[in-house]
C-alpha cells in the first residue's frame, strides 16, 4: 500500500504541475531568478578568487645572495626553505640568470647597460624567489630567513638581503584587502541568496494559498497529512528541476557571452571554460538548491493550512 500511495502522490503532483500551468510557470520563473542569482554568485566568486590569486602571484619574498656565495650553499638553503609548510614554491635564479633578467629589464636603458659592461664582471648575486601558500604566511617565512641570516650555520655570510621588510607594507595591505573583501563577498553573497530564497518562499506560499480550499477539502475527506503535502512537494520538486535546467542553460549562454571580456578584465579567467570545467559542481549546487527550495517551500507553505 505504501508504494501505491507513493505512486499516487507522485502522479497527482505531476498532473497538478501540468494542469496548474500558469501557477507552475510563475513559480518556475521566480525559481529561475533565484537560481540565476545563485549561479551569478558562483561566477562572481570564481572571478573574485581568480583576481585575488593574480594579486597573490605578484607577491613574493626575495633572498639576495652575495656574489661570492657558492651555488651549493644557496641550494642547501633552498632545500631548507622548501621544507617549511608555509612555502608553496622556491625559485632559484643563478647569478647568470639574474644578470640576463636584469639586462632584459633594462634593455632600453643604454646608460645602465653601458655601466654594467664597464664593470667587466657580473655584480649580481644569485636569488631565491619564495612564494607562500597564503599571503599571511610571509611573515613567518621572513622570520625563518632572518634567523638564518643571523645564525652561525654559515648562511649569514651568504645572504646579502631579504626584501620582506621592504614589501611588508604592501603585503600587509594586500592581506587586509583579501580578508575584508572575502568577508564582504561572503556577506553580499549571503544577503543575495537569502533574499532570493525568501522571494521564492513567498512565491510558493502564494501558489499554495490559491490551493487552500483544495487542502481543506482534502482534510474533510480524511486525507492524511502526507497525502495532502505529497503532491505539493512533488510539484515543488518539478518546479525546482525545470527552473534549475533553464537557469543552467541561461548561465551557460551567459558564460560564453562573458568569456572574452572576463579573460581580459579578470586576469585570464575564462568563464566559459570555468563553467565547463566545474559543470558537475555547478549543476549539483543549482539543481540541489532548487529542489531543496521547492520541497522545503511547499512543505512549510502547506503546513499553514493543515490545522483543520
Amino acid at each position, binding site marked *: *500500500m505504501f508504494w501505491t500511495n507513493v505512486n499516487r502522490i507522485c502522479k497527482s503532483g505531476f498532473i*497538478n504541475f501540468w494542469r496548474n500551468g500558469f501557477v507552475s510557470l510563475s513559480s518556475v520563473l521566480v525559481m529561475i531568478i533565484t537560481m540565476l542569482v545563485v549561479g551569478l554568485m558562483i561566477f562572481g566568486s570564481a572571478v573574485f578568487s581568480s583576481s585575488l590569486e593574480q594579486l597573490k602571484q605578484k607577491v613574493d619574498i626575495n633572498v639576495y645572495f652575495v656574489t661570492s656565495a657558492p651555488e651549493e650553499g644557496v641550494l642547501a638553503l633552498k632545500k631548507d626553505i622548501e621544507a617549511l609548510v608555509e612555502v608553496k614554491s622556491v625559485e632559484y635564479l643563478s647569478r647568470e640568470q639574474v644578470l640576463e633578467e636584469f639586462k632584459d629589464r633594462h634593455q632600453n636603458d643604454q646608460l645602465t647597460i653601458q655601466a654594467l659592461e664597464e664593470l667587466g664582471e657580473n655584480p649580481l648575486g644569485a636569488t631565491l624567489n619564495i612564494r607562500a601558500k597564503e599571503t599571511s604566511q610571509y611573515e613567518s617565512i621572513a622570520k625563518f630567513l632572518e634567523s638564518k641570516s643571523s645564525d652561525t650555520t654559515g648562511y649569514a655570510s651568504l645572504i646579502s638581503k631579504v626584501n620582506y621588510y621592504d614589501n611588508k607594507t604592501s603585503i600587509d595591505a594586500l592581506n587586509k584587502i583579501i580578508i575584508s573583501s572575502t568577508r564582504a563577498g561572503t556577506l553580499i553573497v549571503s544577503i543575495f541568496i537569502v533574499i532570493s530564497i525568501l522571494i521564492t518562499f513567498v512565491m510558493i506560499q502564494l501558489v499554495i494559498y490559491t490551493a487552500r480550499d483544495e487542502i481543506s*477539502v482534502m482534510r*474533510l*475527506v*480524511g*486525507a*492524511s497529512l502526507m497525502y495532502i503535502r505529497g503532491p505539493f512537494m512533488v510539484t515543488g520538486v518539478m518546479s525546482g528541476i525545470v527552473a534549475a535546467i533553464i537557469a543552467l542553460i541561461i548561465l551557460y549562454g551567459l558564460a560564453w557571452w562573458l568569456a572574452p571580456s572576463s579573460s581580459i578584465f579578470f586576469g585570464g579567467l575564462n568563464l566559459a571554460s570555468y563553467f565547463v570545467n566545474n559543470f558537475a559542481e555547478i549543476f549539483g549546487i543549482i539543481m540541489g538548491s532548487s529542489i531543496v527550495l521547492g520541497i522545503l517551500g511547499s512543505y512549510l507553505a502547506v503546513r499553514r493550512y493543515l490545522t483543520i
Partner: protein
Amino acid sequence: MEQIKTVIEKGHSPMIFFDKVSKQYPSSGFVLRDINMKVDPEEFVSIVGHSGAGKTTMLKLLLAEEIPTEGIVFVEDTNIHLLNKGEINDFRRRIGTVFQDFRLLPNKTAYENIAFAMEVAGRSDGEIASDVPHVLELVDLKEKLHNFPHELSGGEKQRVAIARAIINQPDIIIADEPTGNLDPVATNDVVNILQKINNLGTTVIMTTHNKSIVDALGRRVVTMEMGKIIRDEPAGRYNL
C-alpha cells in the same frame, strides 16, 4: 455521560449524540448553547434556522473541525474530540460531506474527485476503477466522468459531490445547505438522491433554508434559533 451510558446499555446506541454541547468563539460569544440531540441510525434529519442560528457550527463539531467549549459530541460511542489527527482522518473517511459550494477539487475531473476519496481511504486501483463509474451512473453523470468542475452545471457539481460523499459507503452523510446554489430542478434531483441514500441505510443530516423540500420530505426537523434547539419534531415542517 450518564445519558449515553444508559442508551448503550439499552442496546439502542444513537448514531450521533450531542451531550450538553456549547460552543463559544472569543470574538462572537456563544454560537451554540447546551445542545442535546440524539440521531438514530438511518434517520434523515433536517436542521433549519435563520443564518447565525448555529446550524453550520453543529456540523463543524460533528466533523471534528471545531472542538466544543462545553459538552461532548459522540458518533456511535466515540467522543470524536478525543481523537488524534490520524484517528480524525479515519473518522472523516466514515462520513460523507456535501456542501453548498460543492468543494470539489478544481484540477481534478469528476472521476478523479471521486477516486480521490477512495484513494485516501486506501482502496485499490481495481476497486476505484470499478466503483467510480458505477457511482457516477447512480447520480446520472456517467457521460461527464472526464469533465472538470468548471465544465459542469451547479446541479451536476453537487451530484459529483454526493457521489464523492457516498463512494466509501459512509455511516453518515452531512449535507450543509446542499441545495443553496441550485435551481428547483437540480434541488429536487439532489434531495431525491439524498433520500435514496437514506433509504439504503445511511444516516443523513442536512441543514437547509428551503421550506418546500423540508415540508415535502416529512421527516424529522430540528429547528434552531440563537444557538439553541427550539423545536425537534419527528415528522416536522419548516416553521420559522
